[in-house]
């Protein structure tokens, strides 16, 4: 495994070989390249930032410039084995609708996000009285792309309310996998594998 972000590496480890994958918010294609190399997957990407798209296409990846909030509707039902949304859910205008689209397009969906309820953030807010600026969420409140902060328990509640199923869940702290006990307090990142 090359120098891939830990949550991406985790997803890559759980993608079945030769799968058809749509990476929503694929950035410069790091996960796509990993999946292509290690899982021989047929990977497509959707990315908002033109510079990232150009970089991804220039490395030979099939990436389309577009917006997760508006462009997922053009993908046919169940056209992918997996739809992946890594570290992007909290930046969308309607995370619930985006997740719904992921589960329509993919037979399963990986969703990873930074956990707003991690204890560092809680401490920062409790004692500082201001929006936390921490390692996993390094932005000021006014310039953050993360317009829908979400905690692991919030996410679980949405999944339950929508009647989706959790096929897998993994938690990361300091780049390493950590247990699910008290994940909402101790995990910096969460990765869920969902089914509609």
């Amino acid at each position: 495994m090359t120098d891939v972000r830990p949550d991406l590496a985790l997803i890559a480890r759980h993608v079945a070989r030769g799968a058809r994958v749509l990476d929503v918010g694929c950035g410069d294609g790091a996960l796509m390249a990993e999946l292509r190399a290690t899982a021989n997957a047929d990977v497509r990407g959707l990315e908002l930032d033109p510079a990232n798209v150009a970089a991804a296409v220039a490395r030979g990846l099939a990436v389309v410039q577009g917006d997760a909030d508006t462009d997922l509707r053009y993908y046919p039902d169940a056209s992918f084995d997996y739809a992946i949304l890594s570290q992007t859910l909290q930046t969308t205008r309607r995370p619930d609708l985006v997740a719904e689209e992921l589960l329509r397009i993919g037979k399963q969906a990986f969703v990873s996000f930074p956990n707003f309820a991690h204890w560092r953030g809680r401490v920062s807010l409790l004692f500082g009285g201001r929006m936390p600026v921490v390692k996993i969420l390094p932005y000021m409140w006014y310039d953050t792309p993360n317009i829908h902060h979400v905690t692991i328990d919030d996410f679980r509640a949405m999944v339950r309310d929508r009647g989706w199923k959790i096929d897998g869940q993994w938690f990361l702290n300091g780049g390493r996998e950590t247990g699910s006990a008290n994940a909402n307090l101790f995990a910096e990142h969460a990765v869920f594998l969902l089914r509609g």
Partner: protein
Amino acid sequence: MSAHSEIAAPSTDQRFGLRRSVRLPGPLRLDSGASLAPVDIAYETYGTLNADGSNAMLICHALTGDQFVASDHPVTGKPGWWVRAVGPGKPIDTDRYFIICANVLGSCLGSSGPASVDPATGVPWAMRFPVITIADMVRAQGMLLDALGIGQLAAVIGGSMGGMQALLWPTLFPDRVRSAIVIASTSRHSAQNIAFHEVGRQAIMADPRWRGGDYYADGDAPAAGLAVARMAAHITYLSEAGLTEKFGRKLQARESKTFGFDADFQIESYLRHQGISFVERFDANSYLYITRAMDYYDMAEDQGGSLALAFARTRARYCLISFDTDWLYPTAESRIIVHALHAAGREASFVELSSPFGHDAFLLDAPEMNRVIDGFLRAGE
């Protein structure tokens, strides 16, 4: 090689190289129902076809483009129109690819068009030349590849009208092309696109020298009409921001306004120059025929309005590139294509690049475009 050489050229290398042309017996059955025979095609090739013929690439040119993609133009003496992208070590690498670029059907640089002589009458076709479509151009290219012994293209690439051909290629010949690169293009001509073309055609036909298209005998062509057509079209190739930056309201070689109708403004002088230099290298009737072909172009039309259906049988991988200041074929047109490709389950890449140069951006220095083309092509090798 003369314009009347036989298909069965004496040796392979005679078919390849600069300034080639071939007369194909045809007939080429046209979308209009008419057919054309024989079919002359003028073309150039660059690079070397490898032993298994797997490195062939077709470049499709735009409305007023030609086959001189990377060699000097025989009339103007100017360098090829895409030397920035095509050549040794360039993204369209003549060291790796065997490149073919053919003058489109209907044009006037050696391929059959209204200025060619109708063998049945011995005089130029003029307006008796059958009306052609973009698909007819592509089918003629297919005939050329047959004559060159090329079964399958590694890639087909084009900008603007060339992009229309590149987009049609996998639909018309699903087994003959592995990758398609479509730049600053569209899947159909919009009302606005048709409108601008109609202005150009009317300018030509309103020129008394046009004479119903029969102006070849005395060489007195409708230059004024064609120049105006070019001037109107040229505006659509640029962007307002680009025009403002380059010309603004600057005056042309004078201190103040003349209170007359001379070219006071630099933009006027520039457009007049564009018009005048264009007529030296282009035939007015060809301009009528090719703009008509573009106006008739609508890939979804034959599929009950579903563009996705047009891609249903294709197998190629696609790369689409648009430019943010292109208002002739704006990014939204490329997105329509991308969404249809996704609906059809095709592999597609798409990026909108930033440029101040409008539609013409793909012909100018575009390092990002070059990077994308290079990466996309290498991934297909």
